[in-house]
């Protein structure tokens, strides 16, 4: 009995408390039972459509593989706390974080940046070096989502922090491999692709559980102090293009023009040749006809032709002067003067002026 003393002692001391509990149980056991049932089912929960849930049992992640760990949208049967803890993660939502580590700082004073500022303070101004040791400034926006909820929740660093540094490091390194002209022109796309790939590799290595869904370069430019110099290159390039385009335009009009002119000249020559041949054939035909006539009546035709010609000559001549036949077979003192500047020979001023149309009876040459 003595040995059993202390437990009976405890029982005796605890008796009023036990009686109290028993009394409470007697009166409220339905309530208590109801509460117990409610507690037992309190772990059952609903996972929303854009969520994935993981369950921690006694703090330990339930499920051996990532696929078994994840619980998709729907009803989730979990045990009540503190046994199970349901951790929900929004996996569909794409978050956005600006990364301005390589961008120019926009403080109040910088609003007055003028052309004369000839340096950048590396402590306040973000920038990066390109492969050819030029300076460029970049402003970025990274978009990401949670790819592995368990990793993100229990292993990875804070999402925005790790994104900012990984994206910056990836961009610094990618810029450092490319020349400034490639970066600022056609290399932009591959720059982004390269930086995205590197940043994702970094995020994976950091067990972040994040997926970089896009990396956007909202700004990529040389420093403001050098903007004018870069613009000058651009405008020189455009000017060179314009020069070439003008030359092309000239070529495109000059060659067809030359062709058209040459074609026209050839056509004209062909036309002239055709008409010359036609005339020749006409003449030849006329000659043959005349010849037939001539062979029939040579004397008459010859006479007619001669007279026609003489008539025509007299008719078309500007002046016709008639002189009497010389006495004794030759002329003496017969003189013809030609006045300069006048159309055709005129009689000398000292001689009588003849009437042009009819002709005078006496030629001036007749004077002694």
């Amino acid at each position, binding site marked *: 009995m003595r040995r059993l003393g202390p437990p009976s002692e405890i029982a005796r001391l605890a008796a009023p408390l036990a009686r109290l509990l028993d009394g409470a149980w007697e009166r409220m056991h339905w309530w208590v039972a109801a509460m117990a049932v409610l507690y037992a089912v309190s772990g059952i929960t609903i996972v929303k459509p854009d969520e994935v849930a993981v369950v921690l049992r006694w703090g330990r992640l339930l499920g051996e593989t990532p696929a078994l760990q994840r619980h998709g949208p729907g009803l989730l049967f979990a045990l009540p706390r503190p046994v199970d803890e349901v951790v929900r993660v929004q996996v569909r939502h794409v978050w956005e974080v600006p990364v301005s580590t390589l961008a120019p700082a926009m403080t109040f004073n910088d609003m007055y940046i003028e052309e004369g500022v000839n340096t950048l303070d590396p402590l306040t101004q973000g920038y990066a070096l390109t492969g050819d040791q030029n300076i460029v400034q970049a402003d970025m926006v990274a978009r990401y989502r949670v790819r592995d909820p368990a990793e993100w929740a229990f292993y990875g660093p804070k999402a925005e922090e790790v994104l900012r540094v990984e994206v910056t490091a990836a961009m610094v390194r990618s810029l450092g491999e490319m020349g400034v002209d490639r970066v600022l022109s056609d290399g932009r796309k591959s720059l982004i692709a390269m930086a995205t790939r590197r940043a994702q590799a970094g995020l994976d290595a950091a067990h972040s559980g994040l997926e970089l869904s896009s990396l956007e370069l909202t700004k990529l430019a040389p420093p403001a102090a050098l903007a004018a110099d870069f613009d000058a290159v651009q405008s020189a390039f455009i000017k060179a293009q314009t020069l070439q385009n003008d030359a092309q335009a000239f070529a495109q009009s000059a060659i067809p023009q030359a062709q058209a002119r040459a074609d026209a000249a050839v056509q004209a020559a062909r036309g002239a040749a055709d008409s010359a041949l036609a005339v020749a054939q006409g003449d030849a035909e006329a000659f043959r006809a005349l010849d037939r006539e001539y062979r029939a009546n040579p004397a008459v035709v010859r006479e007619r032709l001669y007279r026609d010609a003489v008539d025509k000559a007299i008719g078309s001549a500007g002046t*016709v002067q008639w002189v009497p036949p010389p006495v004794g077979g030759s002329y003496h003192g017969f003189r013809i003067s030609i006045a300069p500047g006048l159309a055709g020979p005129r009689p000398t001023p000292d001689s009588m002026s003849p009437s042009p149309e009819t002709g005078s009876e006496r030629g001036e040459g007749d004077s002694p």
Partner: protein
Amino acid sequence: MGTLALAAIVFSATAVVVRQGQAVLITRFGRPLRAATQPGLHWKLPWPIDRTLLLDMRRRVYETGQAEMLTRDKKNIIARTFVVWRIGDPLTFIQAIGTEGGAEGKLDGLLTNAAIGTLGGHDLSALVSTNPSDLQMDQIESELLASTAPLALRSYGVEVEQIRLDRLALPAENVTAVFEQMRAERRQFAAKYQAEGEQAASKIHSEAELEAARIRAKGLEEEARIRGESAAQVAKTYADAHRIDPELYRFTRSLDSLDKLVTRNTSLILRTDSEPFSLLQSKDKK
């Protein structure tokens, strides 16, 4: 009912739930006893004998300050690194650093020293270059990791998993020189574009002119050929006709010549006894 309540009290005093991503350091009378790093249920003696210290075992990012350093080819650069780290050894971590926030100060010194040492062994072209064979970033980052990770784990219980350079800049006074160099390069480019544009334009221009001249010459040649052929054809036509009666031809030609010779500017001086005036004269005399 009573036993149930008692069990709950005992459980809450002795159970340690280690959540995923956390570790619990159990100390007995203040002396670190063991670290419960595996998630799940662990046990301890009730307070005040054993106490627990919760540690966040997730990875963290720490970015060092920017520090100026010298590359092997004596170029001044400003670099900054960041680390991804986590508590690797909770016991050592608590003993060496004490609080979680204290780790960053220790890491900063360690990393800056490592960066100065590592970058001093490489040329600037290992960091930035357009020639891929010069670049040694992977090597530099693994050198940085190799020179800090074992020391950090041994001394501070910090496991450094990743070190990368996330800033490469130049001291302000060197930037001016770089700006000048960039300006000169831009001017060169502008001049080059201009010269190339002018050259290309004049090439196109002269080629077009050459082509046009060639076309014109071809046209002239064609024209001359047509004229020549035409002349020959005309001559043949006439010759074929005139061959029938050369004497008549000569006669008509002389008459034609007479016709051509006499124009409005011609003065004819004819004897009155020649045709046709002689007819009038003889009539007058009659």
